[in-house]
């Protein structure tokens, strides 16, 4: 798939030279409209709720193109609905002015309360799908984004999502999760195997067929490796799979390996017990051990790192029942993070670095997801009154959390906004689903 935006003021020579230099890496065309982007964010008041958008039907000539347009409209709409950032208004009938130029009728858009208008056309160019999209600020009648996307017919979904990602990044100033993956465990086949799906629960793929017990999958931040624990050798062992060449490395040590968490692209932390006690170690993707991080009597598990890798949150039973602690990776200094709740586990550090999500086993018997600031302030319960809610994992932009819940029977995957809003089922699939982990860049 390819995409090009408006490059006002750039000569073709410069573009070609840049493309050559970048050896296939795309130049970001949004740079050309950075001024408008900043203006839009500035004029939009904080906390004004959802962005009212009119999504126009994509225009097309010809039967094939019309079918593409219909698919793209559904993909873009579903993508924007999933984000929970928009209220999507039906396009008014007089949205396009009469005549040849068919200009956008901004007064009609304003009258239905639209803040943003998005529309475009799809055509066939050298056998490929070619999508031209335009986004306007309805009140200022100002062009916010103009961009083309090219791909094969099989890439309609990624083209539609690329537009959603561009639109959301332009409106919010943040990268979004379109294109990201969620890895998880499912008992669909009768054994716990590892699967992945797209951010929206579509495109489920089985990644392992070990007929053993495979657990706690997690992609490295650059998407190059998948770390997981599996019983294929007869006991729980850490494996790191290189997704480029499909080679698999493992930690060859006695004892258990539990719940890996990546520190950065070059190091994954996991609990090992070959020295007797269950402690957290840093391991390289080739399975060799860098160093031991914790040293306390009792269980230390479930490492998760601040985005800069300088601090690790983890679960420790050093004071009795499991609680969450934070360790400074440089000094080794350890501070207890959670004091509310007797059984706190499964920490997940937010991509923004300020928050940690975790689960509390409450006196009522419910298990609920909480968030707390990394400094211990701002404790907030995100789930309640819905049985057991576990394994929180942040979306790459920090706007959402995927988690497991048995609120409707067996364990299934759900998503919610980062403040607990709009909790809904992520995917329909046989068996139970658990231990989801949202990738960063894939």
């Amino acid at each position, binding site marked *: *798939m390819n*995409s090009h935006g408006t490059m006002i003021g750039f000569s073709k020579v410069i573009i070609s030279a840049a493309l050559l230099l970048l050896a296939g*890496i795309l*130049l*970001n065309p*949004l*740079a050309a409209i950075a001024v408008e982007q900043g203006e839009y964010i500035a004029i939009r008041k904080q906390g004004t709720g959802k962005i009212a958008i009119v999504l126009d039907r994509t225009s097309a000539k010809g039967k094939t193109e019309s079918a593409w347009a219909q698919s793209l409209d559904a993909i873009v709409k579903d993508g924007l609905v999933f984000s929970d950032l928009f209220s999507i208004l039906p396009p008014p009938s007089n949205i396009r002015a009469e005549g040849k130029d068919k200009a956008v009728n901004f007064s009609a858009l304003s009258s239905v309360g639209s803040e943003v208008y998005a529309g475009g056309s799809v055509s066939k160019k050298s056998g490929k799908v070619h999508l031209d999209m335009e986004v306007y600020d309805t009140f200022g009648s100002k062009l916010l984004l103009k961009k083309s996307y090219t791909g094969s017919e*099989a*890439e309609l979904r*990624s083209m539609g999502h*690329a537009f959603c*990602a*561009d639109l959301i990044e332009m409106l919010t100033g943040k*990268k979004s999760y*379109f*294109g*990201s993956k969620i890895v998880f465990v499912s008992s669909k086949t009768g054994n*716990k195997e590892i699967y992945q799906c797209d951010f929206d629960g579509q495109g489920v*793929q*089985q*990644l*392992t*067929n*070990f*007929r053993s*017990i495979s*657990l*706690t999958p997690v992609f490295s931040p650059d998407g190059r490796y998948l770390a997981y*624990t599996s019983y294929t050798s*007869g*006991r*729980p062992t850490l494996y790191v*799979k290189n*997704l480029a060449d*499909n080679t698999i490395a493992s930690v060859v040590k006695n004892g*258990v390996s*539990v*719940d890996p968490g990546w520190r950065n692209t070059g190091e994954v932390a996991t*609990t090992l*017990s070959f020295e*007797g006690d*269950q402690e957290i170690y840093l391991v390289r993707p080739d399975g060799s051990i860098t160093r031991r991080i914790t040293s306390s009597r009792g*269980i230390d*598990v*479930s490492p998760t790192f601040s985005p800069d890798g300088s601090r690790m949150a983890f*679960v420790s*039973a050093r004071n009795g*029942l*499991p609680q969450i602690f934070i360790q400074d990776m440089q000094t080794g200094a350890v501070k207890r993070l959670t004091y509310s709740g007797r*059984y706190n*586990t*499964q920490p997940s550090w937010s991509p923004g670095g300020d928050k940690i999500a975790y*689960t509390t*086993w409450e006196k009522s018997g419910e298990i609920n997801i909480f968030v707390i600031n990394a400094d211990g302030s701002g404790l907030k319960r995100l789930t309640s009154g819905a049985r057991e809610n*576990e394994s929180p994992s942040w979306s*790459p932009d920090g706007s959402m959390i995927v988690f497991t819940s048995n609120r409707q029977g067996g364990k299934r995957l759900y998503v919610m906004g980062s403040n607990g809003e709009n909790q809904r089922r992520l995917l329909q699939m046989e068996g139970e689903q*658990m*231990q989801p982990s949202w990738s960063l*860049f*894939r």
Partner: protein
Amino acid sequence: MFIPGMLLLGACCCEKDVVVAPPPPPPPPPQVELGDIFFDFDKSELRAEAVQQLQKNFDWMKQNPAGTLIIEGHCDERGTNEYNMALGERRANAAKDYMINIGADPAKMQTVSYGEERPFALGHDEAAWQQNRRAHFVGQGR
């Protein structure tokens, strides 16, 4: 300024790198189930009544000098899977350590934690949970 996420979009949806199953393991040697010991919630300390079973295990080892003892550590379904994986190992290790103390050869014992992955009783009450907080002993070979 680049958009790395977007670059991968096209590539991601085409990937079908399903991992091939490893070859089936060789048939296991003859096994004998030796029994269980049970634990309190979130504990890996041995109860007084565990001693009898551990002595029974040791007797089996003496009678089967070529055999090995597999010690499985298990937890009930409550609590967190990942934490329980570590707790199950502590239960298995507590049993193993006691047996070393009464004279068993550590080289002939192997521990494996199943956490809450292999419950013995499938109920969701204290009766089932108590049965699942256990170390299970399997004698292997003769």
